[in-house]
């Protein structure tokens, strides 16, 4: 019994509680555009780091920090490089990159932060959907379709049942997730039974669902004889709407709903499933190496089906959140691209659920900031799409950096060894 052990664990408990107590309100305040919530978040970070120091001891902690910094260096460099390339494109085509970027970040981070958060909410769900399938080695390219299934289910139940919100809202989410999973059952069965590639089947399902959605809207579209807004359904009763931040934070934007909190909670849940349950272990095993998983006695068809079903449920939850939180009705598909953007977000986060929280916010802020930029400068919004794809490209091209490193080294050795090395390289390329 050392005299120091008791205080250390006590400190750790305090630090843990402090982390949680500061992080939750800090996040909520910050998301609601109460920017001083950042101080609480900083405090939470400090408490968390203190806890880690106490847990690991100083040398181990600092080596951890160093490796974390090293890991985050590449994304940071990638984003900066993408912005620079975007600036070069703007310069080459006659737009002013400085004023454009100023407007982009002011619009995305400050002025239109609530819009950034609203944009990020469905994207966080679809990003998780795509990532979960990816973890199991599958490419759910049709998250857009499952999103619309979620929208339809939420609209249908929201209009059909008149229950108190506290019962109805959870019920709608459960039903939407269930129906979304059922939608993906067909591609899952086709994949397992016939080997039909999920890229084709989920994509075609997405097209089919968005083509058929007007039939659904007409069925729930009120009186057609004087309806002016046909590709929107009736409005849901207010009881089924998600609460807004404004109901407890008066300064918050009145459209901002608690969907983002649900989405973040969902990300934590997905992380828990993937890291700490046997299902998650099996999904990752199949995703990493199906042959090895098979030899370990994991049923590959069953895991394939499970990961596609959960992915469908998550994408449908995105649709339900959008209906209950923001739209309060169903709109026809206008190619908003939640499915496609979900792919980008999952890729950028390397399918890490916690990282998806940040990448979806990044995408959300690029969208809303880009809009503000187009509003206040002449620069067309589409430059943002270009910058986004460059960011993706640069962050996923690890080899690029190895290449640059190698070629730098090769250049040095060429300098040292003269023409000898050159002929060697030429031979290699010419083969």
């Amino acid at each position, binding site marked *: 019994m050392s005299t120091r052990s008791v205080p250390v664990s006590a400190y750790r408990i305090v630090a843990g509680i402090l982390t949680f107590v500061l992080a939750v309100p800090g996040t909520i305040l910050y998301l609601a555009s109460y920017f001083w919530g950042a101080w609480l978040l900083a405090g939470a970070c400090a408490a968390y780091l203190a806890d880690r120091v106490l847990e690991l001891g100083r040398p181990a902690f600092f080596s951890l920090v160093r490796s974390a910094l090293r890991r985050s260096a590449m994304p940071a460099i990638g984003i900066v490089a993408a912005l620079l390339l975007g600036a070069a494109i703007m310069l080459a085509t006659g737009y002013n990159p400085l004023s454009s970027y100023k407007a982009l970040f002011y619009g995305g981070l400050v002025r239109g932060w609530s819009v950034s958060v609203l944009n990020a909410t469905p994207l966080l769900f679809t990003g998780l959907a795509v990532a979960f399938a990816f973890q199991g080695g599958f490419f759910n390219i049709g998250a857009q379709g499952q999103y619309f299934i979620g929208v339809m289910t939420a609209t249908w139940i929201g209009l059909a049942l008149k229950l108190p919100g506290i019962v109805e809202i959870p019920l709608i989410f459960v039903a939407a997730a269930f129906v979304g999973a059922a939608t993906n059952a067909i591609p899952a069965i086709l994949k397992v039974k016939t080997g039909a590639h999920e890229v084709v089947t989920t994509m075609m399902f997405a097209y089919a669902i968005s*083509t058929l959605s007007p039939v659904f809207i007409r069925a729930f579209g009120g009186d*057609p004889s004087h*309806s002016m*807004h*046909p*590709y929107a359904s009736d409005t849901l009763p207010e009881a089924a709407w998600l609460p807004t931040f404004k109901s407890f934070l008066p300064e918050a934007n009145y459209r901002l709903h608690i969907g983002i909190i649900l989405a973040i909670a969902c990300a934590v849940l997905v992380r828990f499933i993937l890291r700490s349950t046997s299902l998650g272990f099996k999904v990752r095993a199949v995703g990493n190496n199906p042959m090895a998983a098979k030899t370990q006695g994991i049923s590959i068809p069953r895991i394939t089906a499970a990961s596609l079903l959960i992915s469908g449920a998550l994408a449908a939850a995105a649709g339900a959140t959008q209906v209950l939180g923001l739209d309060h009705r169903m*709109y*026809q598909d206008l190619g908003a691209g939640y499915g496609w953007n979900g792919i980008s977000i999952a890729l950028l986060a390397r399918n890490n659920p916690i990282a998806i929280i940040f990448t979806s916010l990044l995408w959300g802020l690029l969208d809303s900031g880009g809009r*503000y930029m187009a*509003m206040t400068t002449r620069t067309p919004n589409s430059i943002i799409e270009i910058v986004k794809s460059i960011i993706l490209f640069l962050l996923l091209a690890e080899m690029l950096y190895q290449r640059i490193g190698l070629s730098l080294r090769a250049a040095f050795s060429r300098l040292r060894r003269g023409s000898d090395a050159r002929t060697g390289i030429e031979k290699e390329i010419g083969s």
Partner: protein
Amino acid sequence: MKRFVIAVAAAVLVFAFGPGAPAFAQSSKPFVAMCTDTNGLGDGSFNDGVWAGLKKAEGEGLASVKVLEAHSMTDYIPNLTGLAEGGSKLVFGVGFLMVEQIQEAAKDEPNTFYAGIDDYFGGNVPRNLIGVSFREQEAGYLAGIVAGEMTKKYYKNSKLLNDKNVIGAVLGMNIPPVERYLAGYIAGARSVDPTVDVRFITVGSFADRAKGKEAALALNDQGADIIIQLAGLSGMGVIDAARERKFFAIGADVDQNAAAPDYVLTSALKGTTMSAYLLIKDLAAGTLKGGENRVFGLKEGAIDIAPFHQFDSIVPAEVKQAVADAKAGIASGKITVPSTLAELGIKQ
């Protein structure tokens, strides 16, 4: 009565708050802006139509103008309110998908007028909000008269026409404004010849030009020699088909003659340009009133069909007279144009 109470209440508020209250009576040259829907400018339709109205007003020195394009539905509110913050006195929101958003924006920015093009507001309309909708069926009706007359009685006037009594329509998606156009078109054609065969195909997208073309060709294969496009950018394909197969296309929303002067017979004009222009004119004169829905049709001088341009000589005076008679009949209320296919007894 209710509206009157609200108006009085609003007036009281305006006076009560004095200088802080909205000052709607404007100086000589107000700033007017529009916010497109996700189709953006260059849609050859709505957005372009409203923009033309703004440009027309600017050309006459009534206002200075600006346009802002939206790329997703979440853009709408920030665009609408942002323009007001930028000093716009009247903001046009284009497309009926903005219906919810423009009401919220109007609540947020009480000092700016908002006009929702293609919107109809139920309940209490905020006093700075105007719903602008159209009787598309009336434009469709006029086009239908021209098509119905030309395809049967006067087919010998142009070698683009055949002896079959068939005309066609290509629809983007099956939605009410499109249905209203179509219902009017069919009714117009039937008014001159009840035996006319009107065939139509839905493409399923407002942006698939190749499919729009294929639909028009399929109709032409079935004998349709005059085809109206009600399909947005897919409708460009109808004009492509007319050029290739040599038949007549009828444009919609704006005068589309320039897209193919040798094949676009006329266009059914939805009064987006005129309605925007008329509202700006009211604003400049200080007589713009909010808090109501305004439905623009023939009577209001917004809806019409485009001139026949180079085909003026092949369209006989009788047809022009029939169009003029229909206009007078509709404006005076003698003719009521159906607005749904169900009214025409067509099942879907």
